Each structure stands twice: as structure tokens, then as C-alpha cells.
């Protein structure tokens, strides 16, 4: 019910090489799916099709069993959390006000907004130290990214989109946040569709992995099966990750 369903989706027909070409994928409710692929493989486009920042040229995208064409775009976007690649925190709002944006758009009363902001800051570990009154430019990259996650989760959307959520961080912070994400996800069980160019991150966080190449889904299966995949393109992506830590928390790239 809370799933996302891509059915033979094509996008960017007008171009010489379409961005997406007959793309099909089903993300079940409560499942985390990671899309991996080289830059320009169409990963971000896939996400933008979910919250109707884009509409498919052909095929259909369904969210909660309903075509995005049929959704009111505003309602759809408020039901889908989006953690954006370069965070996109509002520089003129404090941390608390950033997190409170969607609840306020939804018309929550002040007490409920305050309670929810406190809850989320606790969830992302920024509840102590007066972070709620800080400004985005006073935070470290990792803290900004956490606020971005909190903001996406604020109105408790059933679906969460994550675009390279930990891409801009140093390896240590990245690993730490990945751990936190798994902890949060095991509690919240959101339907998560994330894109990353980092295979290790995908293996560490996702239930299933899809590999996107030139606008097509060339492989899809349980995360750990990807190590045994035979498709040469997939092997190439996997072999780029030389070390995968045995505990599965991901590894460093060469």
C-alpha cells in the first residue's frame, strides 16, 4: 500500500539518448531500495518522478497505488519526504524552523510543531546543545545532513526519497550517519528509495539494490546477492569496492 511502483517509465524522449528507457521497479512498503549507477545514469530523475517534480513521458509511476498524474502535486510532495543531494536547508531559518516547515505548511498548531521538532532532533541526536536555535551556516556538514533528514521526516511521510544523502561527507562521518540511518529505519520502517553512486553504501543500507545503466535497470535483487552477480556492468561496479567490511557496514573505496 505504501509502495512505489515504476511501470515501463521512459523520460527524456526528445533527447538522442533518453534519460530513462522502459524503467520498471517496485519498492514495497517499508522496504529500502538503493539505486546505484554511474553519474548520468538517471538516478536523480527516478526520484524526481516519484514526487512529481517530473512527469514520465511514457509509462506510469504509482505512489500508494495511485498514479502521480492523478495526485495533486502539493499533497503528493507532502506525503513524500525528500532528502536532497546538497541538503538545501533554508539559510534564513533556524534548525528548528527548517524542520518545522512542512508541519507548518500542513497547518499544525504551535504546540504540536514544537513537540514534533523536539522528537525529531532527538531522533537525529541534535536534541542537546541548543541546536534548534542555530543557523544552517553554523553547522558542520554532517549536522546539516541530519537536519535535512529530520526535515524530510517532519510530517511523518510514508515514503522517503534520498538523493546521495551522505555523498558530501568525510568517510568517518558518512559511516556514522549510515549507522544512524539504519537505526532510525529499523524503528520507522519507511518506504525508502535512495540513490547513491557508492556500492558499499548501498550494500550497507538497502534491503534490495537496483543497478541503473544508461536509463535501464540492468540488475535488481537482494543487497548481498549483488556480490555474486554475473552481468559485466554490475561486476564492474562491485569490483570498484575493493574491501567490504565483514559486518556489512560498508567499506572504504580505494
Amino acid at each position, binding site marked *: 500500500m505504501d509502495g512505489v511502483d515504476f511501470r515501463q517509465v521512459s523520460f527524456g524522449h526528445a533527447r538522442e539518448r533518453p534519460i530513462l528507457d522502459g524503467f520498471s521497479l517496485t519498492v514495497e512498503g517499508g522496504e529500502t531500495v538503493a539505486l546505484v549507477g554511474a553519474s548520468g545514469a538517471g538516478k536523480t530523475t527516478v526520484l524526481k518522478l516519484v514526487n512529481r*517534480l517530473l512527469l514520465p513521458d511514457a509509462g506510469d509511476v504509482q505512489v500508494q497505488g495511485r498514479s502521480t498524474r492523478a495526485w495533486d502535486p502539493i499533497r503528493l510532495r507532502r506525503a513524500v519526504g525528500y532528502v*536532497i543531494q546538497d541538503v538545501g536547508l533554508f539559510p534564513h531559518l533556524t534548525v528548528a524552523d527548517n524542520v518545522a516547515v512542512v508541519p507548518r505548511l500542513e497547518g499544525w498548531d504551535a504546540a504540536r510543531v514544537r513537540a514534533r521538532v523536539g522528537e525529531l532532533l532527538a531522533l537525529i541526536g541534535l536534541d542537546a546543545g541548543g541546536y534548534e536555535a542555530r543557523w544552517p551556516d553554523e553547522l558542520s556538514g554532517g549536522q546539516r545532513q541530519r537536519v535535512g533528514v529530520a526535515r524530510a521526516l517532519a510530517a511523518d511521510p510514508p515514503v522517503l526519497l534520498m538523493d546521495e544523502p551522505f555523498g558530501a561527507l568525510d568517510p568517518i562521518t558518512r559511516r556514522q550517519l549510515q549507522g544512524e540511518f539504519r537505526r532510525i529505519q529499523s524503528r520507522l520502517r519507511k518506504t525508502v528509495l535512495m540513490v547513491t553512486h557508492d556500492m558499499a553504501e548501498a550494500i550497507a543500507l538497502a534491503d534490495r539494490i537496483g543497478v541503473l545503466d544508461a536509463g535501464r535497470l540492468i540488475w535488481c535483487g537482494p543487497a548481498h546477492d549483488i556480490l555474486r552477480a554475473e552481468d559485466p556492468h554490475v561486476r564492474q561496479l562491485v569490483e570498484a569496492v575493493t574491501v567490504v567490511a565483514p559486518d556489512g557496514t560498508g567499506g572504504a573505496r580505494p
Partner: protein
Amino acid sequence: MTDLVQFWLAHRQELATLAGQHVLLVAASIAIAAAIGVPLGVLAAHRPRLAAPLVAIANVVQTVPSLAMFGFLLPVPFLGGIGARAALVVLVLYALLPIVRSTIVGITGVDRSVREAGVAMGMTPRELLRQVELPLALPAIVAGIRVAAVVGVGSATIAAAIGAGGLGQYIYRGLSMVDTTVILAGAIPAALLALLVDGGLWWLERRLSPRGRRRSPRAALATAAAIVALLLAGGAAMTARSADTIVVASKNFTEQLILGELVAQAIERDTGLTVRRQLNLGGTLICDRALRTGDVDVYVEYTGTALTAIFHQPPSTDREAVTQTVRQLYADSGRTLLPPLGFDNTFAILVRGADARALGLKTIADAARVAPRWRAGFGYEFQERPDGYHGLAKTYGLAFREPPQAMDLSITYRALATGQVDLIAGDATAGLIGRLDLVQLEDNRHYFPPYDAVPVARAETLLRFPQVRTTLQRLAGRISAVDMRAMNDAVDGHRESPESVAQRFLDRRR
């Protein structure tokens, strides 16, 4: 410098009023321009195809010289005419460009990822504008308003030309009196005001930037808005015209300022009516238009000027016929010509006393002989008027070394005295004539029509206030050419104010 301070001290009340008018003009025009310009800029930022033509139009408006703009607006109903309203329109037009442009820059400069985050979070276009785009564009918008306001302080000095008041009055008065002190008396406060406005808005701009608004984000905006509202309310109260007010106007040279004061004070003394002064209007046509529209009730005109410049009749040298024709033409358009004040301010063709003596020049015909070696300088009006330069040149066969130089009338005397030109057309009653050792050449072929000084009033006003007619009639024949020249010299030469000169004259004649 001590002169300047003395001038300010002596005129402190007037200075305060003029500065108040100045601030008001700028504040009101900027408030209106922001109310129009910010929405326009927002619209253009979201419709790029609209932005280019919009900025182009605003650019063109910006390049029209302000005096020309006042000229264009004179005949426009409601918006044009003279006074604060027309000045406001011009200032608003000038302020639009920087405000529109900075709004476009501010909105389009919002970080793409921030805007995208807003859209992806399900903001409607309105919510995005109000919660993300406008707050982030605000410092840029305030920067544009700051530019517009500083430019506006400068442009507003020109508003004095159409009787909107402000510090420009001192500048114009100083120019007509050829008195640097008076010019500075207006120019320095205007410059200080510009600096003050610049600093104040710079502070606001910093307070509104993401770094500056750490505390009380809205307080700064609210403070600024409150100040503007207060200024506007005060100004509106100040400029409201009560029903029992007589508006006296004058053109923008010394004699006219004195005559304006004289008429105004005479009405105040005799009738007890409230008189509002619209002195220093920028020329005959502005005064005439204002009298026609009812912005002005009375001013002093010259019969020859009315005949040719206002009513476009061929020049005539028959004094009686001129007065009769002009009286009839005024009557046809609802105005009443009152009896002449007693002196004839004909154009005076002037040369340096030294030249006149050395070359034995007595008449204009004498000057025509040496003219091919000479340069001439004339006021803008004299170049154009039917009874001006062209007819004069034809009558006397005048031809100069090069085409006459056009300059402000008030500057021609100085230009002649310092040898930049050799012949000018001044006023026969100019106080400067004696002081600068200039000689008036006789109009031996009677080219110039008579220029008897006569009050002209709206017939409607005289019907409503018969006592005004009585007062103006009592002035008939009371001011001789000698009186006028002396009064002009008192102002131009001895820095007395037109008010006190007029007052002394009325006291003496009592």
C-alpha cells in the same frame, strides 16, 4: 562658511520646512515605487520573457532628463501639472528601475537547491514566494531601494522647478541670485540627507541579511515601515489645501520671487486669508498651465510675454493694444488681467560697460556692426520666444561669430561680465546690471513689445474673494522701474531675502 551658517540660522524655519518637504517627497516616492516595483520584479523574475522588456522600459525612463520629464508631464491630467503630485510621479518613475532590477536579481539569485527543496516539500508557488524567495531576496531588494532613495534625494532637488518645494528651492534661488552661499545652503543639506538615507538603508540591509537577522528578524522592517508611514502622514497633513487658501505663484528669477512675495504679503495683510506660496516655478508655461488648471490663483505676468509666449499672437509695439488684446484673451479662458503694477520689464540687450564706452555703443543697431566679431549668450526662453532672438536678429541684421550659446538666464549676466560672451538679453529691471557694470542698449527700432508687469488671477477666485481683487487693484501703478531695480539689487546684491524686501516695500507704502 560663516556666511553659510548665518544664512541657515536666519532661515532655520524655512530650512526645516524645505528639508521636511524634501524627505517627504523622497519617502513617499520610494514607498510608492517599492509598492509597484517589487511585485513587478517578482513577476518578471518568474517570467523571464517579461524581464528583458520591463528592464528596458525602466532603463529608457531612467535616461530621460528630469527637467524634460517634468515638461512632458505638465499637460497630463491628474498626474501632471505642477506641485508635489507631479514631482512624485517623476520621482516614482525614476525609482522604479533600481527596485525592479534588484528584485529580479534577488529572486533569481536564490540558490537552486533551496528553491528545489521548497518545491519538493510541497510548497505552493505562493508559499515558496513568501517563505523562501522573498525573505532571501530581501537584502537585494533593500539594496535596490537604497540606490533609488539616494538617487531620489538628488532628483528631488529638481522638483523645486515645478513648485514641489524641497531643498532644491535654495539651489534655484541661489542660481537666480548668482549667489553661491544660497546654492550651498540647499546643496549641503541635500548631500547630508543623501548620506543619511544611504547609511540608514545600509543598516537595514545588513539587518535583513541572513547573518544580520539573528535577532528580531521583523523588527528592522517594522521600524522602517513605521518611519515611512509617519513621514507620509505628516506630509499629507502638511500639504492638504484648505478651501480658504489663496495660492500665489512666481517664476524662477529674483524679480518674480519678490513680486510673488509682495502679492502674497499684500493679500495676507489686507484680507487675512491664508496664502500658500508656489514661488520659483520653472518658467512662463508652467505658471500659465497652473493658473489654467487652478493649482495657482494669482501670479504676476508681463503683457508682452502673455501676448506672444502664452497666446501666440504676433508681437506688437502698441502698449495700449497689447494690454487690451491680452485682457480679452485671458478673459476668454477664465482669467482676469488686473491693472499694471507700474513698470515695464522689457528685454534688455546688455553689453559690458567697458565695451560700450570703448566702442561708443548706444543702441542695438550700433551693436549689430560689431556683432560678427562677438559671441552672444541667451536664456533658453529667449532663444525660442516669437519676440525673442530670431525677430531681433532680423530687425537689426544681427549675426554673431557663432550661433548664440543657450544657457540659464541667471548665468548669462556672470557670463557677460567675465567675458565668456559679449552680448546677452537680460531683464531691464535686473539688479545685477548696475553691480556688474553692464550697459543696456536702446531698442531704437522698437522691436520688443511692452512688458508691463500685471497680476493675473483666476476669475473664479476673484468672484469668491472680492477682497483679493481690491488688494491687487490697490497695487496698480505703485512699483516703478527704479523701485524694482532697487529691490532686485537688495536681493541679488545684498543677500536680503525676497520676503524682507517685499515686506519693507509694503511697510513704506502704507
